[in-house]
């Protein structure tokens, strides 16, 4: 696992996760082994960017000059369709349980995942 990950944490427009070839566990925080079974047969995969909102918190009081320039910003926990949970930014009016899709945006000098209401979901609601 010495190769540099090419995902949003290193400035690339991608959300990566690991899938265990032994026990099928999926994990988001990258490691050299599976945290569920200890196995080393891990495959790195690219997530689709689709998921559902698990939790939200609209940050109105930030602690650094860089982040303060962005308030208010909505921090989300998203349950991805691949089965792992991740923290990200998202639209301010998202509700828990809504289907969302990821894009990427700049925040405080770095790239971060940003979820917005899934387009097909909006259409489904209207129909």
């Amino acid at each position, binding site marked *: 696992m010495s190769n540099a990950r090419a995902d949003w*944490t290193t400035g690339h427009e991608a959300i990566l996760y690991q899938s265990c070839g032994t026990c099928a566990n999926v994990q*988001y*925080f*990258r490691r050299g082994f599976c945290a569920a079974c200890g196995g080393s047969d891990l495959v790195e995969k690219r997530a689709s960017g689709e998921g559902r909102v*698990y*939790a*939200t*918190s*609209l*940050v*109105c*009081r*930030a*602690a*650094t000059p*860089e*982040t303060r320039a*962005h308030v*208010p*910003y909505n*921090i*989300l*926990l998203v349950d991805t369709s691949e089965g792992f*949970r*991740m*923290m*990200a*930014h998202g639209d301010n009016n998202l509700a*828990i*349980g809504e289907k969302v899709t990821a894009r990427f945006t700049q*925040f*405080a000098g*770095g790239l*971060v995942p940003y979820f917005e209401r899934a387009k097909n979901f909006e259409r489904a609601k209207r129909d």
Partner: protein
Amino acid sequence: MSYITGVGLTSYGKHEGLTSLDLMSMAAELAIADAGLARADIDGILCGYSTVSPHIMLATVFAEHFGIRPAYAHAVQVGGATGLAMTMLAHHLAEAGVVKHVLVVGGENRLTGQSRDASIQALAQVGHPDYEVPLGPTIPAYYGLVASRYMHEYGVTQEDLAEFAVLMRAHAATHPGAQFREPITVTDVMASKPVALPLKLLDCCPVSDGGAAFVVSRDRTGGTGVRVRGCAQAHTHQHVTAAPRLSELGAEIAISKAKAASGVAISDVRYAAVYDSFTITLVMLLEDLGLASRGEAAARVRCGYFGRDGEVPLNTHGGLLSYGHCGVGGAMAHLVETHLQMTERAGKRQVRDASIALLHGDGGVLSSHVSMFLERVR
């Protein structure tokens, strides 16, 4: 068997010009005197950490400063659960015969020793450095996330949360050492500035200077004994992203093990000291511990259940929310107040019967939990 033989607590708020070591020393001095002991009687020291003055060997830094050469000493770091984790360790050390009298101490000039922004930023670093911190979360945001989910699953409202801020303030009003003593209402909480929604300013504990200490001993030193009846921990995760579902959080695991270790049931509890970094923390922990059924904690506040004259008085000093939060010492104040209540020295805050108390601490984002039962013995 072990006993809490002495307690010491400074006022919380601003202690301009005092260092973390000063505040630890003040509390330690009070606790040792309260136990009827001298510095030389202390053969063990457990201390927490100071975010203002970090050190890799804080226990020996303190021991040297305070003038003790202990047989056993080191620091413990479990975030907000540190105070009770140290108490649990001291209990086991005393029971095992390793030490006779352990001084447990925490203190920090967190308010005046650094800017509020620096405090908030230092604490936010409990988040994952790669997968969370770059998103600009704060500790209130981590708890705001948990709050939004808990409210969604159990129908808890922001007004429900506000009841706990009001209760803690009402309790603090009767303690001269509390940082915030002006009465507040649910309307005030609702109208307070948004911090990390659904949490607003008055849902959050303040940053404080202060110190707290106690002595845990193998044998009683005074008249009324406060015995550690049983305790347990549970650690399910560090980062909120990796937290289990709400029904599998560590508080329920820790309390279940503590009940088994002590033979005490929740219905036996006469006084509760529960970690309250945010109103949501208190609501969730009370319901996880079984001091209220799911979604019913606020209703119990409204009918006076957790008041000084209620069935289970809760944090009668005002808790972290209003007595204040100076880091490790913050939740240690809960144990100091519990001891005063159990030994009937709480003055005008005295409750009817604090014969059996339940204490619970939480560190991280509901990551680390310690549950403990204390029992009064005459």
